[in-house]
């Protein structure tokens, strides 16, 4: 490796030269010339127009996106910049939400005005984050990860079983039922009680957090965090105050999560233990990883992709389109050559037709059921074998087969890969039509888990990030 003793700027120079070449080059050059402040303003402005055109349900989805974007940006501080794997992040989110719910609902007599409760909650979350960072003085990597994961588990168990804890008289968390009737934020006598207002509130908060973090990122602290991530021992030798920086990263991340939690409690007029499960933690991670660790715009874009995908999956027509589009895109990126791509597509159709003929010849017409999606159904009817619900077990086997096929495709090359792709793609379509399209929530879980694995292997820098230079 010729990177030894080379600093980051030199190591990336080749990449910079390449950046403006090719058909994307001019666009990139134009984009890079715009100061990032204006980009942020443009982004916020465009997003700000969204509620004017969207339905209430659409605005609700927009709120989910913004919540996730805030969380991803906060998590980015700990994981992307300081390089510590924090699996307890979702607990800070829950802490903020529960704290807000407790002090702004009829659940308990305490009732604080928003301008008191929000600063208190943000500071309290930051302190909790700092407290949880204490183990990071001694524990690194996996140990810290597992420790924070324990913390998240302890949090959820405590919240769920609070009334049953020994020596507890007032029921602080409402146990498994959570707290309902939470009052919305109220600023200067202005209640933020509609979806539209919450959307704008979140947009303003997001803008503030982005500006704040961008400045932190460029400051000494941001640089020190990166030094910590690359090699904390070396950083310590350069007199970087490692422990204090770790604590700061945790505190900043936790404060952002706590703040976001208060908005969640306000938006959904309640908090429930199920808002803060591992599933949601993985969702935040998927958003962050998809967009690219360490990049704020990446975190926002990842959040949009991750938060919108379940909504698409819920709508069968859109989900069908997305699936086939993704399949074709995948074929194009994997095979690259037009001849191979067309032969796979024709091969899948032919293969499907033969399988269908054989299946009908063996089991009769009863095996065919209606396709899920009205538009594609005529097209699919000709060659995709659609089983009735009774043959559920067949699609389970097909799922295992499809996974095996995908793994086999990864290890093969050339025409072998093409030959393997034909049955694999067919089985994947079969599984999609018979199982995945019908189970959007499970499909989402598969997708998010898969995103983490695939992104790490194929594009660890995320969709938009630049390649990280390993300097040894």
């Amino acid at each position, binding site marked *: 490796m010729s990177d030894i003793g080379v600093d980051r700027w030199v190591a990336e120079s080749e990449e910079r030269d390449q950046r403006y070449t090719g058909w994307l080059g001019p666009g990139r050059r134009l984009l890079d010339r715009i100061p990032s402040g204006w980009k942020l303003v443009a982004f916020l402005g465009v997003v700000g127009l969204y509620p004017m055109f969207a339905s209430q349900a659409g605005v609700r989805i927009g709120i989910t996106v913004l919540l996730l974007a805030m969380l991803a940006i906060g998590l980015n501080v700990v*994981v992307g910049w300081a*390089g510590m*794997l924090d*699996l307890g992040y979702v607990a800070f989110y829950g802490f903020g939400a529960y704290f807000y719910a407790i002090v702004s609902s009829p659940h308990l007599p305490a009732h604080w005005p928003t301008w008191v409760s929000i600063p208190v909650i943000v500071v309290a979350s930051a302190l909790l984050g700092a407290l949880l960072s204490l*183990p990071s003085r*001694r*524990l690194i*990597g*996996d*140990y810290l*990860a*597992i*420790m924070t*994961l*324990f*913390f998240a*588990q*302890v949090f959820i*168990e*405590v919240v769920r*079983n609070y009334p*049953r*804890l*020994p020596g507890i008289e007032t029921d602080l968390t409402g146990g498994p039922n959570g707290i309902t009737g939470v009052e919305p934020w109220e600023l200067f006598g202005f209640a933020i009680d509609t979806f539209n207002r919450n959307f704008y509130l979140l947009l303003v908060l997001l803008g503030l957090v982005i500006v704040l973090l961008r400045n932190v990122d460029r400051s000494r602290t941001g640089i020190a965090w990166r030094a910590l991530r690359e*090699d904390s*021992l*070396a950083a310590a*030798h350069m007199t970087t105050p490692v422990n204090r920086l770790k604590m700061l990263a945790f505190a900043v991340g936790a404060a952002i999560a706590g703040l976001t939690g208060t908005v969640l409690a306000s938006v959904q007029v309640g908090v429930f233990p199920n808002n803060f499960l*591992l599933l949601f933690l*993985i969702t935040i*991670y*998927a958003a962050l*990883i998809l967009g690219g*660790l360490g990049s704020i715009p990446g975190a926002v874009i990842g959040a949009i992709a991750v938060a919108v995908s379940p909504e698409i999956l819920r709508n069968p027509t859109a989900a069908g389109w997305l699936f086939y589009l993704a399949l074709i895109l995948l074929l194009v990126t994997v095979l690259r050559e037009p001849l191979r791509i067309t032969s796979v597509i024709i091969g899948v159709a032919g293969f499907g037709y033969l399988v269908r003929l054989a299946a009908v010849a063996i089991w009769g017409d009863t095996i065919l059921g209606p396709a899920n999606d009205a538009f594609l159904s005529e097209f699919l009817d000709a060659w995709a074998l659609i089983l009735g619900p009774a043959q559920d077990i067949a699609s*389970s086997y097909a*799922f*295992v087969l499809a*996974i095996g096929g995908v*793994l086999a495709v*990864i*290890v093969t090359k050339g025409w072998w890969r093409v030959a393997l792709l034909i049955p694999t793609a067919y089985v994947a379509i079969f599984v999609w039509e018979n*199982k*995945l399209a019908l*189970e959007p929530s*499970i499909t989402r*879980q*598969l997708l*998010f*888990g*898969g*995103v*983490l*694995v695939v992104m*790490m*292997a194929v594009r*660890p820098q995320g969709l938009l990030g630049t390649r*990280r230079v*390993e300097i040894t």
Partner: protein
Amino acid sequence: MEFFLQQTVNGLTLGSVYALLALGYSMVYGVLKFLNFAHGEVYMFGAFAGYGVLTVLGGAAGLAVPVWLALTLMFVGAVVVSSGIGVALERFAYRPLRTASRLAPLISAIGASFFLQAAALLLFSANSRSYQAPTLIPIENSLTVGPISVWVVRILVIVTAVVLMILLTWWVRASRMGKAVRALSYDTEAAAMMGIDVDRVIVITFLIGSALAGVGGVMVGLVFGRVFHLMGFIAGLKAFTAAVVGGIGSIPGAMLGGLLIGFAEAYTTAFISSTFQNLIVFGLLIVFLLVRPRGFLGRPEVAKV
């Protein structure tokens, strides 16, 4: 006293399973220096494989073959499925990341774990299954040990675990491949320079670790009954802690840690509270991690820049 002894047997059974799981964590950590988050899911699939074999053979009530054969086939099925998944994980989720930053394989492992959980949910639905082991081997088949009687299945579990651990210890100490595993956990680069096929050793480590997890899965199904798609997560966490408590990378440590966690859990459930069982076990672990992160039998790690 009798209750206490009963709980001790309980803890011993539970601890044997945790120990088997912990061995997988510990071995993988030893060679790759990273935590295989998806190990709990490998164990869960082992339990389901055992259930599948049992169902194919006619279920606990209408078994078509003798009980001993059914049990053997269940264990074999679980070992095949689990080690297959383990090796696939290594090949596709972890191997591309060997040279990546420290976080990459961890994130990949979390993703894989989540993916496997969802896959199990898709394949087996959210209903929990039961081996119905008391139908398979009636509870009357018990040995009387002192004042208490112990169901033979529990004895089978404990004995199998002990035998496996002895075999593993022998394998790591004495066999050629075991020596290679130790060399790798000492220094991967140096081992590669000495002509050890690193990929092969890592695959074998995953194979053995996952096979043990599969055996553990069937054991849990036999003794504790419930098999469901989330069973791997908490068990995996506890087993990892067992590995840490014993000293990660150390094989006797993993066994010791597994037993300790098993006892802690059994006594907590019996004498303090079953609701807070996980809470207390995790609390203990947090404290332990803080006080002695290298565990009872672990070597202190020397940090190098």
